[in-house]
């Protein structure tokens, strides 16, 4: 703004400048003061006639100077100091231009002489007024006096006053607050203090008291000037904005040029014209190349270069080198001491093992307990021929002082032996593989995530008087069947533990099994040499009645039964006594039957007679009342047989192997190698692809029939012989019972995906049965529908575990 204005001002007349500046003064003062000034001016005019004359002279000269200085400052606006230096007479203006030079100028002024004295005093006065200008509302009356005096003086005598005012108007931005000396710093630094800053005398400027909100509100209501009151951050005082300020703000807000007097439509002056002017506005300093080089300097340089070339003058580097040559040289004698020996041909050198440090025994003055007594001496002498057996290779000896210790006679020999050892015993780094045992255990899911599984004892079925060897349930899970050594078969109500029926037999009951066909109400009981087919008479009366009706009709067949079968088994109609007990068929075998098992459809069943040699496995059919011996030759002592749940396969477990036969093709399909000494029992997964084998040598073997003939996993969960294993039909569970009274429930998940191996996780160990004759648990059977398991034990009880 200033730059644009200044050139314009030059064109103005002196008079207009004066007028405008006067107006400016008047504008800045209050309107009240205006009249007062005028009066004062008149008074002064009349009173001080002498001063009038003097100052009029100065005025003239000042005015001339003013014009010239204005021109100069236009050409060189920054170079204030030069203007000051050249024109001493203009110190009035200089004062106003730069406050910091005040002292200098005042000194200069003092030299000017008496003539200027009066004006200078006035100036100082006026300056003080300027400083206090901000305070004018606060101390109105004082300022009035001051200003009136100062201004009257100025107006009387000089036009230079006008010029000062002009500067003041335009340069106020540099000196917003002349009272506070803190400078342009964030005011919040003084938030914590009581003062705002420091005045010119170094005294604290105390913060004015600020009213609370209520005061403010009252002020807002009462003070008509409240809307134009703002807080001066420098002083903390409230300042009422003048009309001029308001107008200025309004103009800025309206996006007009703030200066009212600025003529936007003044004729355009082309300052930067393309035409060549006689007096150019800008002048560049002359370029360096326009200077001539100094001859003397060139001579000096050539001298230095010559001296360097000749070696008369040394550079710093050369000096260093020379000094290093003169000083004595040192080197590390033991430089390789702390590093591995750098050998050319030996890689991975292994340093020789260190000798043990000498102990107390080696001391010249060993403690008395180290010195050999007679017995130790005797031992020492005894081992003369076998010196390597001695604990020490020398006899500890005591000397009065170190001086008296003789030379060690075996020194050379021992050194030699040591060298021999090192030479003859090659040293090698032993690679050691360290595997933590935890890392070998596979990561198994937590049993908590594999629920439901049976884990609490729910019901005990008490009533048998001897070991319960075998248990089975009907298809709905309503009834439990058990066969015991007390020659009885019992039927229990599962949910209450009530014994519903007891069927007396003639011999020890070794195996019982409920018919899987829901349309037939039949159970198989293996007792002694006999197999009884019994209608238990529980459940649906319609089914039990129909079963009886069906079995009454003896099928007539003209197929001749071979002699071999005839001698093995005889199908008999039960006697009256047996029929009353529920026995519907009576099969008399030639040897003891240890196991019976139904085929999945409930028509065929198999019997095992371990002593039967080649006739140890017998398959019978109820509907035709026929039996057949599938094997012509004995393959070993048959322990257990099992029908495949879906395919026509028969699993036969001998002592060591499990053979799988295809009953239709009449051929052996597979032979499973158990790698155990004696198989006890088998169970097949309802899917038919996985077989669980329990053995008397404490193992349980899980065969994945698709995978291999060797066990997929061997579970050594039991401490003694495993006697019962079972799969659940619905849940991925299997259980095993053993002579150590443990019933172990495991999670056995078989996946449909052939690539994924079964997941086996032991879940729960249940130990509630009592031991009896070194027997623990015999039979293990899952509830057909619920995740519950039954176990029968040698303690003549059956236990139900529920989830």
């Amino acid at each position, binding site marked *: 703004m200033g730059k644009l204005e200044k050139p314009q001002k030059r064109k103005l007349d002196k008079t207009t400048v004066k007028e405008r500046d006067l107006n400016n003064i008047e504008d800045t003062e209050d309107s009240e003061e205006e009249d007062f000034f005028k009066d004062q001016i008149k008074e002064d005019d009349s009173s001080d006639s002498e001063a009038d004359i003097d100052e009029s002279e100065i005025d003239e000269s000042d005015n001339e100077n003013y014009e010239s200085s204005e021109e100069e400052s236009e050409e060189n606006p920054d170079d204030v100091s030069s203007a000051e230096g050249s024109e001493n007479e203009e110190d009035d203006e200089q004062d106003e231009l730069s406050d910091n030079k005040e002292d200098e100028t005042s000194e200069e002024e003092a030299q000017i002489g008496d003539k200027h004295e009066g004006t200078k005093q006035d100036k100082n006065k006026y300056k003080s007024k300027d400083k206090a200008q901000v305070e004018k509302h606060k101390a109105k009356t004082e300022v009035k006096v001051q200003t009136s005096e100062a201004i009257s003086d100025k107006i009387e005598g000089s036009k230079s006053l006008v010029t000062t005012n002009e500067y003041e108007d335009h340069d106020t931005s540099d000196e917003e607050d002349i009272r506070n000396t803190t400078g342009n710093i964030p005011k919040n630094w003084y938030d914590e203090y009581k003062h705002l800053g420091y005045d010119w005398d170094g005294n604290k400027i105390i913060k004015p008291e600020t009213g609370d909100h209520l005061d403010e509100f009252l002020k807002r209501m009462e003070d008509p000037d409240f809307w134009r009151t703002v807080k001066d951050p420098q002083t903390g005082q409230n300042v009422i904005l003048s009309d001029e300020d308001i107008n200025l703000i309004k103009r800025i807000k309206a996006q007009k040029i703030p200066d009212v007097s600025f003529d936007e439509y003044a004729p355009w002056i082309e300052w930067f014209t393309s035409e060549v002017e006689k007096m150019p506005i800008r002048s560049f300093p002359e370029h360096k190349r326009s200077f001539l080089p100094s001859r003397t300097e060139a001579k000096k340089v050539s001298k230095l270069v010559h001296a360097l070339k000749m070696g008369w003058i040394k550079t710093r580097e050369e000096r260093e080198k020379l000094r290093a040559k003169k000083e004595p040289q040192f080197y590390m004698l033991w430089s390789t001491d702390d590093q591995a020996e750098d050998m050319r041909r030996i890689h991975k050198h292994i340093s020789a093992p260190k000798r043990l440090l000498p102990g107390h025994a080696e001391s010249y003055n060993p403690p008395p307990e180290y010195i050999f007594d007679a017995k130790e001496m005797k031992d020492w002498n005894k081992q003369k021929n076998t010196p390597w057996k001695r604990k020490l290779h020398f006899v500890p000896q005591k000397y009065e002082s170190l001086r008296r210790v003789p030379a060690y006679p075996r020194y050379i020999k021992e050194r030699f032996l040591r060298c021999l050892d090192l030479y003859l015993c090659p040293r090698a780094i032993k690679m050691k593989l360290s595997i933590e045992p935890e890392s070998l255990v596979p990561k198994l899911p937590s049993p908590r995530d594999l629920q439901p599984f049976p884990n609490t004892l*729910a019901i005990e079925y008490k009533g048998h008087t001897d070991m319960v060897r075998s248990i089975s349930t009907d298809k*709905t899970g*309503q009834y439990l069947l058990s066969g015991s050594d007390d020659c009885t078969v019992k039927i229990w109500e599962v949910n209450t*533990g*009530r014994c519903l029926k007891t069927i007396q037999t003639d011999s020890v009951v070794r195996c019982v099994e409920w018919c899987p066909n829901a349309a037939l109400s039949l159970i198989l009981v293996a007792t002694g040499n006999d197999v009884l087919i019994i209608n238990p008479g529980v*459940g*649906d009366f*319609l089914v039990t009645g129909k079963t009886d009706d069906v079995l009454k009709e003896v099928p007539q067949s003209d197929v001749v039964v071979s002699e071999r079968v005839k001698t093995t088994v005889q199908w008999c109609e039960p006697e009256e006594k047996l029929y009353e007990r529920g026995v519907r068929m009576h099969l008399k075998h030639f040897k003891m039957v240890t196991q019976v098992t139904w085929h999945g459809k409930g028509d065929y069943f198999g019997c095992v007679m371990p002593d039967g040699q080649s006739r140890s496995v017998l398959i019978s059919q109820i509907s035709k009342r026929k039996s057949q011996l599938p094997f012509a030759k004995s393959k070993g002592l048959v322990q257990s047989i099992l029908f495949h749940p879906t395919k026509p396969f028969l699993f036969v477990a001998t002592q060591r192997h499990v053979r799988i036969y295809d009953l239709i093709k009449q051929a052996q399909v597979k032979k499973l190698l158990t790698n155990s000494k004696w198989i006890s029992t088998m169970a097949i997964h309802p899917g038919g692809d996985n077989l669980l084998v329990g053995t008397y040598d404490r193992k349980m073997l899980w065969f994945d029939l698709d995978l291999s003939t060797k066990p997929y996993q061997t579970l050594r969960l039991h401490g003694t012989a495993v006697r019962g294993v079972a799969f659940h039909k619905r849940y991925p569970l299997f259980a095993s019972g053993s002579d150590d009274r443990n019933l172990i429930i495991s999670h056995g998940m078989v996946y449909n995906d052939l690539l994924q191996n079964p997941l086996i996780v032991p879940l729960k160990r249940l130990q509630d049965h009592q031991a009896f004759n070194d027997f623990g648990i015999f039979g293990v059977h899952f509830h057909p529908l*619920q995740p519950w398991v039954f176990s029968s034990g040698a303690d003549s009880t059956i236990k139900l575990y529920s*989830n």
Partner: protein
Amino acid sequence: MQYSNECQLQIRLLTKQEIYSVPDVPVSVPSNIDPKALNQLLNELLKESSADFLKPKDFDFLAVGELIRLTLLEHLQERNVSTESTIDVEYIERTPAPEPEDSILHDDWVSSIQCTDKWILSGCYDNSVNIWTSHGKPVVSVKDHSEMVKGVTWIDRNDVSKGFVSVSHDQTGVIWEWVEGSEQMIPKVQLRGHERGIDCVSVSPNSATLATGGWDTNLKLWSASLNADDTGEPSSKRLRGARGIFTRVPLHTLKGHKEDISSVNWTDNHTVCTASMDHTIKFWDCELNGIKNEIVDQKAFLSSSWSTLSNTLLAASADRNIRLYDPRSTEGSICKSMFTSHVLWVTCVTWSKYNEHLFLSGSYDSTVKMWDTRSPKAPLYNLRGHEGQVLTVDWSNNKYLMSGGTDNSINIFKNKHVLH
């Protein structure tokens, strides 16, 4: 803890029983106050407030909807309730401890009991149905079933002349006629239709319909009238002789369960609720003959009981817990709370017919427990006396708490609770 023990709590004592009301003024009590001390305090207050309150009484205290069994502070901390504000403590007259009254000995396990004001009806594993006076005097016993009787129920408990029903594992149920007090009961109607043993029977609230469920997994609805209906024919003489017994077939057979229906309840005249071993509870609409609602849980249900007072269902499953279901609730779990105190399977639960908070449960651990629904952690009372598994409990007569079990006896406890 030490500080908090010493601090005081502001409580306001409230009650719904007007005769025991005290001025509604907050009382400051030490935070470690227990129900006993609260009781003392309340009795003092009552003595002050009314002159005619002479005999000290026992009260139970409820805060945040549950009975206070520990100290007040612990009770509140367990439920994350602020102790800063005034706590409303409601008090109710304490349910007095039931007193052993009598023991009725049977010949075999007692499977089912139901009593009226004067008579006790029981079903027994020796195939007999028995009626006793409420004082334990035998009135009549008939072995008409050929298998163990699993369920008995009066058709109308207020009118014994309408007869009663027994269901048995011989796959039939019988509706009996009995003249009150007589020593003879006459089987009038035989219910035939189930294919396996019947486990449970229930009569609709209007005494018109019977619902039975059993091991054939079907729910069957029958008419409950004593008179021979049109379709009924005299059953074969071989079975019943000349007494003129009628055979009745079911009105409806509702299929849907996969395993044994162990318990059946009527929620209203048209809705039956069945609990089954297949881990589900189903609500059946008897007019549309379909399933209305279903609750599925993890365990096989052994027993259930519906409360018409609170419209909630109690169910005991094959574990130690009793669960309270609110079938109407749509958000969150419909299992509202779990009552765990028994150590073996809980086989029977029954609501009090007169108090919406009290119920009775019997378990294989040979204890009967009396519960308040507001105290799920611990029962109110343990009723001991049985020497074997408890198979059935009954509280249809408010005065008597009955339980029958495998020790062949019905144990009767007298409930001294006064109704208001």
